[in-house]
């Protein structure tokens, strides 16, 4: 069967206008490859793209791992993961980093008893799902229910807001994402901390890392399952081969340096899905 158009949903920490601009090259390539008009959508939060995928109005997106799990749990037949970004060192993961202000005297989760802790967006893997599961494993007695171990647990709304909130002292510690490469004082090579440093919002001397998750798999590029097989094949080939064909465009769509994309499948996300399901209970 044929398709009349192709819609790409894009997420990420950059502002919408930059995101759209960065994906303009992908749009051009896709139009060439599929011969149909392509539209880009940059909704404000994960939920917008997830709803689009579930409703069948968005054909392709690059989701976070938790976002994929949410989509899968809502409708296993909606999308399939096809590709994942490869980092400069060849890894396919990143970390959730817990951090606090250095002058608060907090050095680890042990010092967080009775203090306020902040997550980002509930649909974020590193900003919520993984720390929500792994932090309680830190030691006995740690739970994520407000008022039990932590004095309060809040959602700040996103990585950027978490950083500002911790820096301001609104909350005592929070979690955000980083690639874990490079040095703490630079805010690592990439991630939300690095962006805040570059923007002049924070001084890494003021902050300290208090916790780090296990490696989190990068979120997959997903395609709607009901797309025609040839469309899927063309798109996979296009994105997979992008790094060789147009490194500049790869840089743009992966929001930084990377080694391009590699194929991946559903199995890689089983643990995340299980984690998400356990959080839903």
């Amino acid at each position: 069967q044929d398709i009349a158009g192709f819609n790409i949903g894009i997420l990420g920490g950059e502002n919408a206008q930059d995101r759209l601009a960065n994906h303009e090259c992908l749009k051009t390539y896709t139009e060439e490859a599929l011969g149909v008009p392509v539209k880009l959508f940059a909704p404000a939060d994960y939920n917008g793209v997830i709803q689009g995928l579930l409703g069948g109005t968005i054909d392709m997106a690059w989701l976070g791992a938790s976002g994929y799990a949410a989509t899968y749990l809502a409708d296993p037949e909606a999308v399939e993961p096809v590709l994942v970004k490869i980092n400069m060192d060849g890894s396919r993961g990143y970390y959730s980093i817990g951090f606090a202000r250095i002058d608060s005297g907090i050095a680890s989760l042990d010092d967080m008893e009775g203090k306020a802790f902040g997550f980002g967006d509930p649909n974020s893997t590193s900003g919520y799902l993984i720390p929500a599961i792994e932090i309680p494993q830190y030691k006995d007695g740690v739970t994520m229910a407000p008022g039990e171990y932590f004095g309060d647990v809040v959602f700040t709304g996103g990585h950027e807001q978490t950083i500002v909130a911790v820096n301001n002292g609104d909350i005592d510690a929070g979690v955000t994402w980083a690639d874990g490469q490079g040095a703490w004082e630079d805010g690592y090579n990439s991630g939300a901390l690095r962006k805040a440093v570059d923007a002049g919002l924070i001084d890494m001397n003021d902050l300290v890392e208090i916790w780090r998750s296990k490696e989190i798999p990068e979120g997959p590029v997903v395609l709607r399952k009901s797309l025609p097989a040839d469309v899927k094949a063309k798109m996979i080939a296009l994105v997979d081969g992008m790094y060789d064909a147009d490194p500049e465009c790869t840089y743009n769509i992966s929001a930084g340096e990377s080694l391009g994309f590699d194929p991946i499948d559903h199995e890689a996300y089983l643990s995340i899905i299980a984690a998400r399901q356990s959080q839903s209970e």
Partner: protein
Amino acid sequence: MAHPTTHHHDSYFDLVRRKRLYGGVMLVIFVLLLASGFRLADARNAGGFWDGLPKVFDFPADVVRDTAPKLDQLPGHMLHFLPSLIETINIAATATLIGALLAIVLSLLSTRGLARWPRLIGLFRRMMDIMRAVPEIVIALVLIFVLGGGPVPAMIAIAFHTVGALGKLFSEVNENADLKPVEGLASVGSRWGQQMWLGVVPQVLPNWFSYALLRFEINVRASAILGFVGAGGIGYELKNAMSWGQGRFDEAAAIFILLFGSIVLFDQLSSHVRNGLAHKGGH
């Protein structure tokens, strides 16, 4: 018999022709705008209108499916979220109160015939226009950046917008106020504040009050919405529950019922009070 009045006939037919032409052109333009606007929006949307129409109830169905087995937990959830609801209502009430008080001052300052400094009327009007034009969400986000999350940024943001919105309505009310009492008070050597308080306020208070109530209703909704961007209250809880999706829709449903219930409650309450005012202050 038509002879002496031919020109009446002609002039009327001219009028009719002109009116039909204008009316027709306006109608055509409007229909064209609407139709092409719809097609454009449809084309720019991810999903088309006609394809989406049958799926309109998918999302509510998901929510219901998720909530139905956990119906017994709803009252518990509601109780749990009640403090957030109260926070939302407090935000709206405070913002309406502060906004209305400032709007009163600004509206008096910008009403011809009442203004303390007639030359500055334009300035105060522009001020209100701008306050009205800036969306609450913008101010809230800026303030969250400076003050941190919580109810205060939302309160200030809503109050700011309220000043502009109510200020305009209030000054329309003021314009219809009878100036005779004001002049009478001016002639005894009273100050501006006394003239306003005794001469204007008693005349316009019922109308001010009814507009302020209407605004309060709107502000309850606005403060719930600002919760979506981290300004606390019930909106924040709703957003978290909604965007998690499957698994927490029961919480979303509970919050939704709370929020909707209180909006309807205030709506009914305020239209009740306003009707009462309208009838009492008939003249």
